[in-house]
């Protein structure tokens, strides 16, 4: 087991595409570290560079104390699970699991023992004599995970391993992976574009955009105080409402008159945008205390909650999360007020968190 250090990673392809601009990561021993970002943000390239499947243009990668820049993938002592499971199609489950061990040249008895152990951990018993094409997507993914396990590597690298599964299975596997990682205590780097996956799995999350790290933090930090407008718009479903505000009389006020609790140390000399979570807003009867006049544009009835899209004074639509008991019709005149604590506030021009 080992931590992973990535320093000033830069990857430029021969055709001129810059996949990773500048990435620094410090992943702790035993940590489940998630890299999250939209497609093309460089997360997969970073992971593949850690695996040794891509050679970075510049920058250093250390696994444990070893500088692995010039080591081939096999000598980095890591295991990787792919989005497309990459089980060898001509091998039965048992042989797929044994394959990396046989490649290492381990004695037969130990190979069998380790395969049995991994099969027990991932509950693959009945599947051991099947070939990949006779396994369902979920089963294939469990086999792929088991194949990573048998190596007893210093770190697991997961490249969007759940993307090809259906929603229900994905939630199950998520739990399973988290449990497994906790049990084994092995460092895991997990790449995904699914923020729910990132939030539920990660000890820490790195949000990447355009080949750069926008923010690294625990799921709660990332959710509560996104470090940039990009993160603010990326995390949360629906995402944060970004409302242009100005400071007046010690309050934060939007152009529609919506009043927000101000965070301390606000700079006054620039344009500001407040990031307001949908659950920090409330749709009220028109004219309720502290509310501004607004109008319901549409409502999404999700059963356990209702997402109202509300227009407040022509200042753009905001999304408000309300319990299913509070019901307003579309087009109804309503009030809108802020109920949460001080929201994170961003500089309009730099798009970064200022308070």
């Amino acid at each position, binding site marked *: 087991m080992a931590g992973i250090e990535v320093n000033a990673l830069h990857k430029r392809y021969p055709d001129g595409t810059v996949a990773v601009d500048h990435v620094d990561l410090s992943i702790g021993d035993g940590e489940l570290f998630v890299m999250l970002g939209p497609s093309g943000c460089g997360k997969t390239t970073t992971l593949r560079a850690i695996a040794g499947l891509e050679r970075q243009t510049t920058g250093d990668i250390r696994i444990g104390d070893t500088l692995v820049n010039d080591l081939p993938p096999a000598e980095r002592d890591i295991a990787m699970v792919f989005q497309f499971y*990459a089980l060898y199609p001509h091998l039965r489950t048992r042989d797929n699991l044994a394959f990396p061990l046989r*490649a290492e040249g381990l004695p037969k008895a130990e190979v069998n023992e380790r395969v049995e152990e991994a099969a027990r951990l991932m509950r693959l018993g009945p599947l051991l004599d099947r070939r990949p094409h006779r396994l369902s997507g979920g089963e294939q993914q469990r086999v792929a995970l088991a194949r990573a396990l048998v190596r007893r590597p210093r770190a697991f690298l997961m490249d969007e391993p759940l993307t090809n599964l259906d929603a229900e299975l994905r939630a199950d596997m998520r739990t399973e992976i988290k449990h497994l990682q906790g049990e084994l205590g092995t460092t895991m780097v997990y790449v995904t574009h699914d923020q729910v996956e990132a939030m539920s799995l990660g000890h820490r999350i790195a949000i990447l955009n355009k080949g750069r790290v926008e923010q690294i933090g625990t799921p709660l930090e990332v959710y509560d105080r996104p470090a940039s407008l990009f993160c603010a718009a990326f995390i949360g479903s629906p995402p944060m409402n970004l409302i242009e505000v100005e400071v007046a009389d010690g309050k934060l006020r939007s152009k529609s008159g919506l009043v927000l609790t101000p965070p301390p140390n606000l700079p006054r000399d620039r344009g500001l945008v407040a990031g307001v979570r949908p659950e920090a807003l409330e749709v009220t009867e028109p004219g309720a205390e502290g509310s501004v006049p607004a109008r319901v544009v549409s409502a999404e009835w999700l059963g356990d909650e209702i997402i109202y899209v509300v227009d407040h004074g022509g200042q753009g639509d905001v999304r408000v999360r309300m319990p299913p008991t509070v019901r307003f019709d579309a087009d109804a005149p309503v009030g809108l007020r802020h109920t949460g604590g001080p929201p994170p506030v961003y500089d309009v021009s730099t798009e970064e968190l200022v308070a």
Partner: protein
Amino acid sequence: MAVSINEAVSTDPARDRTPPARRFGGRGLSVLEIAVLTVLAAVMLFPVLWMIETSIKENRDVYAIPAKFFDFQVTLDHFKDVFFSSGGGRSSLSVSFLNSVVVAGVSTVLATVLGVPAAWAYSRFAVKAKKDQLFFILSTRFMPPVVVVIPIFLMYRQLGLIDTKLGLILIYTAFNVPFTIWMMKGFVDEVPAEYEDAAMLDGYTRLQAFRRFTLPLLLPGIAATAVFALIFSWNEFVFAIFLTSSDSVRTAPPAIAGLIGGTTVDWGLVAAASVVFALPVLVFAYLVRKHLIAGVTLGAVRR
């Protein structure tokens, strides 16, 4: 000969694609269809049938006027003449058939050995100006052989490659490599790169990963590509007739063409030689017909 091979490729999928509704309903239409198709097939296949018929006719029946369609004497003399000269021993035609086998076989193997790894590299790696390179490679096939045959002839004369089998092998390989690269790239694209990634993590080098995991999955594609390359080399006429002259080097197409001319033409021998010439490729194409269709329709449907 290529005509009949294309036939073999294209009729199969056409039949398979007939929508079920048409197959069961509209009996009148299907009778009409069958009639039209029969007439078309008869017209298209007539030269082939006539060739086969001529190859087994006695000479006097071959030259009979009016032509005899059914009532003729069957003989295999012409086929004997294809392989054996009148004085005993091997005929010059049989030598040219052997030359065809060597030239087409070796050039196909060379094109495959060179083209498959190149296709793999173009498919897997980020290469500088990849699209331009691929277009350049394809562009070498834009010109018909007859346009480049004179410069090639001059170059070959300098290099001493005129009238050698090596010369033909080289030029056929050069013509087949671009085709092999383009066709194989499609097949390689279909094989997920993750197999190689996984194998590399399991301790193989990139080349070992390619050989052990990707290559076996590519075999059907390689078979299809090689057949197309083989058909090209086997049928090629222009280069063969310009670049070779002696009987010991010439391939079958110019040798058969050489039978026509002079005062009399032994049509029976020409037909028999043509049948012998057409058979190997027909048989080969029939054996790999599924892969041929895969090759033709590759990329037409996205998963």
